[in-house]
């Protein structure tokens, strides 16, 4: 079995209120020297079999249509070997 990982992040120009809240908590807890925090989403997609080119292309399509909104988000995709 193989695993496809999709990491989704808000585009840099889009304000991230959640990241800002986390950044604020860093300061209150005394974690200094943090310039910025941006929060994203990670999807771990376990396939039934091998990560063939065709299946990864399908997952890429799912990332384009469902997992990420290209208007406000970017994503990266990579294949991992599942344990």
């Amino acid at each position, binding site marked *: 079995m193989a695993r496809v990982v999709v990491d989704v992040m808000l585009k840099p120009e889009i*304000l991230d*209120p959640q990241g800002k809240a986390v950044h604020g908590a860093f300061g209150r807890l005394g974690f200094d020297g943090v310039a910025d925090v941006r929060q994203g989403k990670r999807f771990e997609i376990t396939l039934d079999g091998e990560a063939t080119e065709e299946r990864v292309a399908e997952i890429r399509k799912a990332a384009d249509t*469902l*997992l990420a909104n290209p*208007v*406000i988000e970017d994503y990266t995709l990579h294949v991992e070997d599942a344990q």
Partner: protein
Amino acid sequence: MKIGVVTFPGSLDDADARRAAAVAGAEPVALWHADADLHGVDAVVLPGGFSYGDYLRAGAISRFAPVMETIIKKAGEGLPVLGICNGFQVLCESHLLPGALIKNHHRKFLCKDQPLRIENNRTAWTSDYDANHEITIVLKNQDGSYVADEATLDRLEGEGRVVARYLGENPNGSYRDIAGISNERGNVVGLMPHPEHCVETLTGPTTDGLGFFTSVLKAVVAS
């Protein structure tokens, strides 16, 4: 004249939208997200709420509901569609409207009476308002900040597709104070504030929201 109101899992304002349709003089029809049939309605409202718990992104999963396939197709043929709050988010996720809605810049849920200016009274849902009519209706949302790239914002402004704009202090961080927009044809409108809560003085701050529902009645009769 029938106005259909879609209920998704997690819709909250579907009953109020049906009531507003009735107050305006239309026959409200309850539509179900899993039923692709629009049951002969002349216009559709996508109501507010937290469909599918706002999981993934607000409106992202609802956009793939069976009823949405039919609505996307019919909207392209001119069916009047109004998306309110979560409905606006669904319309953006469906690409029937450009841009997206993200979390309020202050990160808090907001519930207040909000003054707006109706800047485009040529859409199917706003023809009963005067040009630059100032109204006050309820605004209540978590993900109400309208965002789009500069080119899209310029195009919306240039084509007169900013339907409503917030007056006074920007309540949620929306770019250019945008509260509502339309598609090119003017049959599809997305609005963050809630006209359906403002059709009777017993429960709303004004009856300023009624115009959205009376407008579409006239639009349907005229077509």
